């Protein structure tokens, strides 16, 4: 089946410049242990396959299709559909836009053909399902659904269906988030605050706590007790900056400069959030074990505050308005 290339790919400028359409021609020997360097290499690689997921109207009307739709619903309304595993106000599509379909927003069709993969974070080869569990544990600050549980099966079915026709193991254009070069000016809290106030605060609130509409979480909190915890990928500056550059402000991704994206990522990840569930009893030990990289803010002093004490409760399943949630620190 041939589908047109996704138009929005062209918006991810750095990547698009390097895209050469070599349909079905994946490069062998891709390093599975992702580092900033290997991601840069992949981003600069001309051997990218352009792929577009099928339209939702092609979901089959059968038992499998029902599971796919269940997965789509989970993706959009994660708390309502999987309350026992969600501990904050985010949904899957807070980070994976357009219900996991958007190139440059870590789309699920690209993720599906990238696993099993070795992940330095877990120091082992993870299956796709195990990777999904990580999303719930860290980004959703909740509890990982058991392997084979209805929630994981539905999300797997949805992802598999979306990746139909994508070559396994190939380098797909628009996989993950855009990779930004290290910023010339480094990153800066005060500059990031200015970017945040000008471009983010309208929807995410000046205090980072997002907004409720008709009583429901609407614009997600970006720090504090109802946001992703310290173990999430988004708590890493390079990933957050790439996501922001490619996708924010929502509807006009690519409009911030790389420097603005790094600065505002530093500002956002320069605030307290729920503790890393791998916490080893001290900030220092946890930093040494899990946050020793150049893009971590955990365990660092930002704007005069040592980050990593955690706020709210880690791993709660009390949902968006959990009673145990406390007022976020540092706001």
């Amino acid at each position, binding site marked *: 089946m041939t589908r047109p290339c996704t*138009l929005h790919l062209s918006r991810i400028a750095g990547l698009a410049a390097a895209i050469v359409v070599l349909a079905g021609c994946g490069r062998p020997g891709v390093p599975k242990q992702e580092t900033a360097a290997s991601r840069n290499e992949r981003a600069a690689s001309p051997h990218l396959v352009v792929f577009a997921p099928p339209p939702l109207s092609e979901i089959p009307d059968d038992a499998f299709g029902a599971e796919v739709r269940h997965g789509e619903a989970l993706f959009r309304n994660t708390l309502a559909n999987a309350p026992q595993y969600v501990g904050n106000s985010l949904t899957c599509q807070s980070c994976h836009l357009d219900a996991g379909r958007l190139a440059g927003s870590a789309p699920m069709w690209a993720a599906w053909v990238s696993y099993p993969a070795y992940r330095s974070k877990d120091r082992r080869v993870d299956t796709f399902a195990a990777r999904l569990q990580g999303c719930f544990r860290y980004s959703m600050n909740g509890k990982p659904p058991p392997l084979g549980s209805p929630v994981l099966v539905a999300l797997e079915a949805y992802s598999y269906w979306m990746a139909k026709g994508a070559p396994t193991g190939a380098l797909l254009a628009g996989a993950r988030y855009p990779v930004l070069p290290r910023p010339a000016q480094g990153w800066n809290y005060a500059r990031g605050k200015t970017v945040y106030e000008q471009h983010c605060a*309208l929807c995410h609130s000046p205090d980072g706590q*997002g*907004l409720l509409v*008709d009583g429901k979480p609407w614009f997600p909190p970006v720090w504090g007790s109802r946001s992703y915890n310290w173990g999430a990928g988004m708590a890493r500056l390079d990933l957050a900056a790439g996501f922001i550059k490619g996708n924010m402000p929502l509807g006009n991704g690519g409009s911030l400069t790389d420097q603005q994206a790094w600065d505002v990522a530093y500002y956002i990840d320069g605030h307290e959030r729920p503790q890393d569930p791998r916490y080893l009893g001290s900030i220092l030990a946890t930093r040494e074990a899990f946050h020793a990289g150049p893009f971590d803010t955990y365990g660092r002093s930002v704007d005069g505050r040592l980050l990593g004490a955690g706020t709210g409760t880690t791993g709660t399943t009390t949902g968006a308005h959990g009673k145990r949630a406390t007022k976020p620190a540092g706001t």
Partner: protein
Amino acid sequence: MRSMLAFAVALLLGVAAHAAVPLQASKVSVSEAGQLERDAQIELARQIVMHGSPQGAHSCATCHGEEGQGKTKAAFPHLAGLPAPYLIRQLRHFNQMARDNPSMQAIAHNLSESQIVALAAYFSRLVPPPVMGATVQPPALGEQLALHGSGAVPACVTCHGPGGRGLGGALSAAFPPIAGQPAVYLERQLVAWRNDKRPAGPDGLMGAVGKHLTVEQIRAVSLYFAAQPTLSNVPTAVVRP
């Protein structure tokens, strides 16, 4: 002749209102003074709506209706119930020639800042017309875009609220209600954003949206929101958690 008479009356009333407020304000309490000022503001706006301004702005009612209900067949949008901050912003854009519409530019050119504020307050207090006849069944594509978006275009309801009711509070200037507006009007706005003929809003969001949507998508999503009931055109509650 009749309109000249109306102008004269409006002029007299306007002068009277301006003269009356400061005289009375010294004798009444602060809250009463505020009420008097609001009453004078509404009266000033009502005169402009019905008869135009002494400075030469046409009456709003000619196109937008005496109740601000709009005219669907002529693609004139309803103004009743739209948030004042949004209306102020639009009138300023017309006044500054930033939003492209020769009629509205000419009218807003003749409005002072205080008249703009008064008109916005006036229309925001009116109840929107309950049904703005959308006679065409909107295509499924419209609902798809409205509720889920497409690719880099977010779901419209993300910013315009459930049902296109708009988001209230501090967001009301940026994210107005769009439910029940004439489809042709909505379509023209999206085309205007695509062609850089209307300020693209915060962070250029609507400019980007207009440029990403196809002509078919623009038509479909305009028909969808034209068919949404304006009775729900009360800005959605937005709360800081």
